[in-house]
Structure formats: structure tokens, C-alpha cells
């Protein structure tokens, strides 16, 4: 009898199938695509943050040998393509017409026979600008003297939206009568996911067959195909998007960018394939940034430490266009998940979105549509309250957790949490880190004038969008899909609607199928990313692949099993009701030794089908989840601070995650290592900043910092398992949890270290300089 371990089923640390090609350098990325007659596109970008375009002179560029074409916004306007819709009910410029709204904005596209000709051509395009007043600080966006940025809109204001959630009056009432209240301003700074591979595409218009094939770095190839059909007016069956190996996405590769549209237009115009490969500066300065939420959190509590209400006011800096790539009905996405792991009487959240002269975006970076800001806000605010109450931060959390018997738990802001056991994760983390000993050590060190801190974050995530009625992209409901074919010899081809960018789908989805079909992982191929072959899906981001497409995969497999059972009965010459699926085979009830394997049944499905049963063994499922899933965990961080330089070093970091049923523990651990590293980067060093002229500081890796192995702490991971009751295999999704939950742990640790000096909050990134300033202001020196 074959075992789950032999199959590589659920819970097995199967080695990643995709690594064989990645480790050998055999991955195939967009820039590896080589076609005959290829041409190359280079973008001309604006040096100014806000300026009127007086004139674009392309004549010198066109004289450069090898330059084939220069496309401007005016050219695109003739085809009604100079603007395109965003996913947040706004529009954005493809190539600027009239004026530019941020530094690095796309102004013209030069196509050349070689990359070098295109780059030389771009350098020779002359653009005359008249500089306009620049708006960088979102707080000034609504002041009467602020320049109006978006002249294309009917409403002449920089205000994009006001959104609120919860009961303002009831919340205010609790605050007015509460024993204790705290209020903390905090900025979740503008940062950028900075995937290793920048954006790229190859657009290839086949004039004979009137078909457009686009290889592109896409986290959502199907959605992008539909967007291309709607924007460019090409029939959708004549568009094929291929997203080959993708070198990291983190949300950066969800939107459609001007470079893609320009390449498609150029290929239609020239009748030749056009390759656009973005450089790092282009990626950091013009593509989907993350966060830029200016938040105030108020908590009301009893003097015993019972948290009663949360009130949040937020200014959201969306940059020049509201291009936040998020599919919820709410302009601030899932931000009102901010009551976190706590059982509150009431809460109220309001958000105002504004335009500034910065790049558009706001959703990216390993984040389920603003849950990252929300988790940081509540986990930081709870620490501020603990400081106010003089209570231990772990104890305050424990006292206010939603209890296991309260699930499914309805939050005061309308979410229904599926399952959780928050105290178990906290206890496990505190036990591993040795919390009591650390508190004693800290007391001794403080007496000696040494500085150490302990930070806790007990976060709750929200991942796995749909349901389709609540979440859509331009009306496309956020289901996801899987199509499974079992070949006559028992080998399997599965195609899924989601798109890996490093998550390991080729392995984990094969494991789900192995578990459900009793076929070894090695005999299962998982494909994705080609819209001509894969079933329609909404793509991979917001940790939705396992919760949605993972469920579709399990259900498609179970459909196969249903049909296979009929065939098995036929093969074993017994009635269908006498057959059961047990221990990875079809067995005769009461006589388990009489059995046939799925491979046997597959052969029969093509050679020996019973009467009334169609030949073949295939199934497809489109899964619309009934609810999101709510992973959680507790992270504990211990830091030591250098009094002389202000440097802080992470001595310990314990991460206890609960993502429900684990498909591949090794891949989950890898996801957690990656996410913690990104959370550390955001906490310690990452910021997309601007000077007073709107010039970006952080458009290359000398100024926008990625930690190396030297800075990155050692991670200690562990888990609890609380399955999702509504997911077919109980899985919840994990990719983003560590990046969502960890920033508060780092900041809480550093603030705890400095709390004897009256420090209650420091905004991220917490640089050595900021710590040094806090220490010197408190009179502490080396």
C-alpha cells in the first residue's frame, strides 16, 4: 500500500520541481525570449515631477542610425490610447500629453534595431518643459494654495476619496467614557517591492493571423489579456499572454504598465516583435510602490487593560493616479481588518486618498490590499497602550485576544474570521524565545546601562480573495481555477489560473493532486501562465493561490475521483456503492485488499469504460471561495542597541505562524524566511523619498536598500495548525504573513529598548541615525 510520504502528498517537504531549472540557470524569463526581426523599445522619462510639456522634438532621435520609430502621447491619442483605465476607477497616462505628474513618468517611446540604438535615440529626444509647482507632502494636498494636479478630472481637487467603515458615534462614545485612551501618529512609509527581475515584455503582432502574442512579466496573465482586449480593442481570442518564469513580483507585476502598451502599439505599427526591458531606475521610480499611509491610531481601554475601541484616521498618498491594483469594493482595500486579533466592542476607520506628484501604485509588496498597514497599526498601537498602562505587552495581548470558541468571529468592522487560536501561537513563541528569562536579562542590563528590547506582534492576516461578489477586477469576479487531465498511463497534466513568481506552485499544486488522486508528485506536471492553454484565473497576489486555486485543484481532483469510482467499480466488477476511496486507492468495502489504483482506472478510462460513461479522465473547477482565510501568528524579536552609533541588531527572532493545513513545510519555511527578510528591510532601511523638487531619492540600489545575508537576522520558525473550516483541504495561504506581521515586531523591539528614555514611537525605517537622535536627546552617549 502506497503512503502519503511516498506520493509526496500533503505535509511532505518535497523538493521544488522548478528548482532544477533555476539552479542550473535554465529558467526562461521574458528577456530570454529571442524572436527573428526583434526590435527594442526604450522609454523617455520625465526629469521633472510636475511640468507642462511645451514641445517634443523627435527629429534628432529619428536621425540616429537604427532608430525605427518614436512614439509620443500625441501619437497614442490618435488611437485613443494615451490614457488607460486603472484598477481603482481612475485613469492614468500611458505617454504624457499636456503635462507630466511625477519624475520618471513615461513621455515617449523609442524603438530601435538594437537596444543601443533605442537608448541613444531616447537620449536624443528633446522635450521642452515648463516647470510647475510641485506637491510632495500629502498633508498639503488639500490646502487651498496647493496646485491642482489632475486637470483631466471633472472635480478640480486633489482629493480622491473619503471612505469610512464602522460606527463613528458608538466608537466616539466609548472613547469619551473610557478610563484610558492613547493616540499615536505613525507613518507606514512609501517603499517598493523591488523584484530582482524588473518589468519586461515582448509584443509580437502576427499580421497574417491577426494575432497578438505578448510575453510579459505578469502576476495575472488572464486579467491582463482582458485588459488589453478592452483597452486596445483587439478581439480577446486574438490575444495570447504568456507569463514565463517571473523573477519575483510581490504585487509589482499586477498592474498593466505604459511600457507594455507602448510595446504592443509599436509591434502593431512596425509589424515586428518589440522587446521592452525596464531598467532598475525605471522600475523603482515609476512602477507600483507600496504603502504611503499616514495613520493615526487611537485606542480606548479600561484601566485593567481591556481594550474597548479602536479609532483610525488615515491620509493615503496615491501619487499622480489612483492606480492601486486592488480588486475590493473599498478604496482602502482590506484596511478595516485593523482590529486585528482582538475582541473589541467597536471600531471606526476613515481614510482620505489624495494625489501628489509621485509615482502611482500603493498596493504592492507582499500585501493583501492594505492588511500590512492595518496589522502594523494595531500591533504598534497595542504596545503604546501597554506603555501607557504600565502593562506587559504579552499580557495585554493575551487579555484581549478573540478566544477559540468565538470563531467564526464577526468583527465590529464586518469581517468574519474563519478560525484561530491566538493564545496558543503566543504561548509557543514566548516559550521558544524564553520570554521570562529575557525580561530578567533586560532588567539587569538596564541597571548596567546597556540597551536591549523585546518586541511582540500577534497579527491576524486576511488572504485569499474572492469571494467574487465582494472582489473583482474590472468586473471579473475573483474565482480561480484548475483543469486536470489524467493520461491513460496514469500521468497527470494540470493547468491552473494562478501564476507563480517563486512561490513553488509547480510543486505544491502537484502535492495537492498527489494527495487527492493517489498519484506520485513525480508523475504530475503543473502548468500556468499561458492564456491559450491555462483556464481563466485572476492571478497570484494577496496570498490567494492556495486559498482559491488550491481549493479549485482539490475539487477538480475530487471530480476526477467521482468519475473514476464508476470506472473502478466496472473494472472490479462490483456495484459502485460497494467501492470506496481509501488509502489512495479504490477498494471494495469490507475487502480492502481488492483494489485498483488511480493509474489502473485511468487506463480503463481510455480502454474499458462502462456503458454510459464518457471516455477520458478530465475535470475542471472554477472555485469561488465562500470567505477569505485568516492566517495568524506571533512573532517575537529581541534587539541590542549600540549606544555609540545607534545601530540595532536583531539577536533573536522567533516566528510562530499558523496558516492552517501545510502543504509543503519546506516551502512554507522558505516563504516565511523571505517575508521576514522583507519585513526587516522595511523596518530597518527601505524608503522611497523625494526632495522638495519632487526628485526621487531611492531610484537605484545605492539609495533604496536591500538587505544582504550580512544584515539579515537568523530566523527561528515554528507553527501551530488551525485549519480553515471552509477550505477543501483546510489551507489558508502564508506568503505574506511574515511581511505583514513582522514590521511591528521589529519596531516594538527597538521602541521597547528605548522606552526607559521616554521613547514611545519611531517611524520606519528605523535607521541608526534615528536611534542615535533619540539616545542623544535623552542624554545617552557612548
Amino acid at each position: 500500500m502506497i503512503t502519503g510520504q511516498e506520493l509526496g502528498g500533503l505535509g511532505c517537504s518535497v523538493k521544488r520541481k522548478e528548482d532544477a531549472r533555476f539552479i542550473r540557470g535554465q529558467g526562461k524569463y521574458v528577456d530570454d525570449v529571442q524572436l527573428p526581426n526583434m526590435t527594442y523599445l526604450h522609454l523617455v522619462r520625465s526629469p521633472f515631477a510636475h511640468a507642462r510639456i511645451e514641445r517634443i522634438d523627435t527629429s534628432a532621435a529619428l536621425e540616429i542610425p537604427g532608430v525605427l520609430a518614436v512614439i509620443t502621447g500625441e501619437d497614442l491619442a490618435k488611437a485613443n490610447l494615451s490614457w488607460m483605465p486603472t484598477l481603482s476607477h481612475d485613469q492614468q497616462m500611458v505617454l504624457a500629453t499636456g503635462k507630466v505628474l511625477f519624475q520618471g513618468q513615461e513621455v515617449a517611446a523609442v524603438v530601435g534595431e538594437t537596444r543601443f540604438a533605442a537608448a541613444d535615440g531616447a537620449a536624443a529626444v528633446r522635450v521642452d518643459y515648463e516647470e510647475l509647482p510641485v506637491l510632495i507632502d500629502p498633508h498639503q494636498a488639500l490646502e487651498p494654495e496647493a496646485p491642482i494636479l489632475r486637470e483631466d478630472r471633472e472635480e478640480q481637487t486633489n482629493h480622491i476619496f473619503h471612505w469610512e467603515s464602522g460606527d463613528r458615534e458608538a466608537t466616539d462614545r466609548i472613547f469619551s467614557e473610557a478610563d484610558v485612551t492613547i493616540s499615536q501618529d505613525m507613518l507606514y512609509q512609501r517603499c517598493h517591492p523591488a523584484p530582482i527581475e524588473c518589468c519586461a515584455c515582448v509584443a509580437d503582432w502576427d499580421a497574417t493571423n491577426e494575432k497578438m502574442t505578448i510575453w510579459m512579466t505578469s502576476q495575472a496573465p488572464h486579467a491582463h489579456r482582458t485588459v488589453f482586449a478592452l483597452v486596445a480593442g483587439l478581439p480577446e481570442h486574438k490575444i495570447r499572454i504568456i507569463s514565463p518564469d517571473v523573477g519575483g513580483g510581490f504585487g509589482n507585476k499586477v498592474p498593466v504598465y505604459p511600457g507594455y502598451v507602448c510595446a504592443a502599439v509599436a509591434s502593431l505599427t512596425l509589424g515586428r516583435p518589440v522587446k521592452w526591458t525596464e531598467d532598475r531606475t525605471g522600475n523603482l521610480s515609476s512602477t507600483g510602490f507600496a504603502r504611503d499611509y499616514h495613520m493615526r491610531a487611537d485606542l480606548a481601554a479600561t484601566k485593567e487593560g481591556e481594550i474597548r475601541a479602536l479609532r483610525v484616521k488615515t491620509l493615503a498618498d496615491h501619487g499622480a493616479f489612483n492606480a492601486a491594483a486592488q480588486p475590493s469594493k473599498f478604496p482602502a482595500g482590506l484596511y478595516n481588518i485593523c482590529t486585528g486579533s482582538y475582541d473589541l466592542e467597536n471600531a471606526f476607520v476613515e481614510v482620505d486618498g489624495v494625489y501628489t506628484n509621485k509615482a502611482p501604485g500603493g498596493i504592492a509588496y507582499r500585501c493583501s490590499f492594505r492588511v500590512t498597514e492595518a496589522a502594523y497599526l494595531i500591533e504598534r498601537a497595542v504596545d503604546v497602550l501597554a506603555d501607557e498602562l504600565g502593562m506587559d505587552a504579552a499580557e495585554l495581548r493575551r487579555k484581549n485576544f478573540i478566544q477559540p470558541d468565538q470563531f467564526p468571529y464577526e468583527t465590529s468592522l464586518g469581517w468574519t474570521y474563519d478560525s484561530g487560536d491566538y493564545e496558543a501561537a503566543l504561548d509557543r513563541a514566548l516559550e521558544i524565545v524564553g520570554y521570562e528569562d529575557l525580561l530578567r536579562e533586560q532588567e539587569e542590563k538596564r541597571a548596567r546601562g546597556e540597551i536591549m528590547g523585546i518586541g511582540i506582534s500577534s497579527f491576524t492576516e486576511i488572504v485569499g480573495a474572492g469571494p467574487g461578489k465582494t472582489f473583482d477586477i474590472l468586473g471579473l469576479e475573483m474565482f480561480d481555477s484548475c483543469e486536470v487531465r489524467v493520461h491513460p498511463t496514469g500521468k497527470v497534466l494540470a493547468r491552473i489560473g494562478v501564476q507563480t513568481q517563486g512561490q513553488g506552485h509547480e510543486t505544491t499544486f502537484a502535492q495537492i493532486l498527489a494527495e487527492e488522486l493517489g498519484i506520485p508528485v513525480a508523475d504530475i506536471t503543473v502548468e500556468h501562465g499561458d492564456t491559450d492553454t491555462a483556464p481563466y484565473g485572476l492571478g497570484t497576489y494577496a496570498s490567494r493561490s492556495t486559498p482559491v486555486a488550491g481549493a479549485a485543484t482539490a475539487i477538480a481532483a475530487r471530480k476526477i475521483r467521482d468519475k473514476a469510482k464508476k470506472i473502478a467499480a466496472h473494472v472490479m466488477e462490483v456495484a459502485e456503492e460497494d467501492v470506496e476511496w481509501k488509502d489512495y486507492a479504490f477498494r471494495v468495502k469490507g475487502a480492502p485488499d481488492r483494489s485498483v489504483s488511480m493509474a489502473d482506472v485511468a487506463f480503463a478510462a481510455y480502454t474499458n469504460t462502462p456503458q454510459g460513461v464518457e471516455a477520458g479522465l478530465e475535470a475542471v473547477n472554477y472555485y469561488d471561495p465562500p470567505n477569505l482565510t485568516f492566517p495568524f501568528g506571533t512573532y517575537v524579536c529581541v534587539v541590542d542597541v549600540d549606544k555609540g552609533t545607534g545601530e540595532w541588531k536583531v539577536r533573536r527572532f522567533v516566528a510562530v505562524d499558523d496558516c492552517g493545513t501545510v502543504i509543503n513545510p519546506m516551502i512554507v519555511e522558505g516563504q516565511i524566511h523571505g517575508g521576514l527578510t522583507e519585513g526587516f528591510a522595511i523596518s530597518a532601511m527601505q524608503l522611497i523619498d523625494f526632495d522638495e523638487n519632487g526628485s526621487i531619492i531611492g531610484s537605484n540600489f545605492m539609495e533604496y536598500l536591500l538587505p544582504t545575508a550580512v544584515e539579515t537576522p537568523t530566523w527561528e520558525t515554528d507553527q501551530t495548525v488551525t485549519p480553515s473550516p471552509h477550505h477543501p483541504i483546510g489551507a489558508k495561504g502564508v506568503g505574506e504573513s511574515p511581511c505583514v506581521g513582522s514590521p511591528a515586531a521589529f519596531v516594538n523591539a527597538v521602541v521597547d529598548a528605548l522606552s526607559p528614555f521616554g521613547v514611545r514611537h519611531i517611524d520606519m525605517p528605523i535607521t541608526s541615525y534615528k536611534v542615535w537622535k533619540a539616545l542623544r536627546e535623552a542624554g545617552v552617549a557612548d
Partner: protein
Amino acid sequence: MIPAAFDYHRPASLADALSVLDELGWDAKLLAGGQSLIPAMRFRLAEPTAIVDLNGLAELERFEEADGYLHIGALVRHATIADSGLARERYPLLADAAAVIADPLVRNRGTVGGSLIHADPAGDWGSVMLAYRAELAVRRVDGDRIVPIDELFVTTFMTSLEPSELVTSVRIPAAGTGQGGAYEKLERKVGDFATVGVAAQIALAPDGTVGAVGIGLTAVGATNLRAAAAEQELLGSSADEAAIASAAARAAAESNPSADGRGSEEYKRDMVRVLTARALRRSVERARGTV
């Protein structure tokens, strides 16, 4: 990130290199490790019309003790020094600095000579060579000369060398007993330019007092700076905590940093103080043989 067009020369001998330089003058840029030049060209911040690639010139790769000096050829890579037992045992200041320059990729390609001639005040070797009181061996078509390190840096990205001149090697006095040095560097992450760096080199007199001292400062002025007043403060002292503290305070006062994303002027000045004290302490320990 594609550079503008340029001519490429790869001389086969030092004599060829010198005559190409003599002919091209200011139009030529020397390519050694390329770790500053190539990024600048890719950003089109530098658009030289000609590149003279020195990488074929084996005579620039000398790394040996001779005639009372350690000779470091202009093409010696940072990694060669970082991996060198000789540096670790006898020239700890060199070994310290080589290990913290940028990252392994840059260290494998980048050169001592290229870094010095680039004259970036955030470069680490400038401070190290100031602390060692190094000298540069310089050649041109019709002669050669020795340039003391204190006469090299004019201002940011500018040296006193003529365009026709080529540095062939750097020499520092051979190590002796009672000597020690250390490099302290504060950076935001590996590969970042220094927020502040401090190089210290000390020689103790037979009576245990400081007989000679060099202190070089990184990233706190238009060039790498010598902390001359701090050196004077320490000279002849017993290098105790009080002397180190007041020398460190002097070095901070002598520095002239600018604010940037790494911190304010005040912060950087204080970092000069903190790092100078740490570098001096380690230098003294090494000179006394206590570490």
C-alpha cells in the same frame, strides 16, 4: 542603463598604455576594476570618448614587501588584500579595510589604484593610505615621480595627477614591531558607501608612548581627510582612554561632513568621534600585541 558610444583601447604593455594616454589626454578614461566608472557610464553620468583598459598589464599587479616598503600594484584587487595572509598578519589596517569595501562582487574586480585615483571621499583606501602615510609611484611617457598621499587629493573626484600620468603602485612603510592599525566603518548595509569611516595606524615608542600615528577619515569632507590635530593630540601620549577620547573629539571637530540620507552633519561628526575612539583602541591593542 546603456552607456553612450566610446572607443576602446587595450594596451599590451605599460609603455603602450602611457603613449595612448599621452596622445588622448583628457578624452581618455582609465578602466581598472570599473566598479565606479562603469556604473557612471551606464547612468550616462560619464560619457568618455575613449576607454583605456589596463587589465592586460600584469606589471601592475605587484603585491610584495621589498626595500623597506609594502608595494601594492595599482591593479591589485580588494579581494587579493582581503584574502592575503601577509595583510592579516602584518598590515591589519589593510586587511580590515579590504574586508569591508562594498561587497564580494566589487571586491573581486575593484582595485586599490582605481579606487584612489577615483578620489571619492567615501572611498575607504584614501583614509587607509593617509593613516599609513603612503606614497604613489607615478609614470608618464617621459619620466616618473613619487607622489605623497597628502598631495594626491585635490577635491571630490579630482587628483593632482596629469591626464598623461598613470599610477603603477602604492607603497607603505614595511610593518615593524610595536605597530598596529584598525579600520572602523559605519554603513547602512553591506555595499553601501560609508556613513563614516576611520582608519588609524599607530607605532609605539620603546617606552610605550605613541611614537607615530596616522588617522584618515572617510566620507566626512570633499576628500578623504587627515585628522592632523587628532594625531598631534595623541603623539607622545600613553594612548590611555583620556588621550583617545580627546583625540577622537579633535577628529570630530576637524571633520567636515554633509547631511544626506545617512544622517545629519551633527550625527556624522559624532560618528567620527565614536569610530575614531574605537579604531584607536583597537590599534593600540594590536600595537601592544594584546589581541
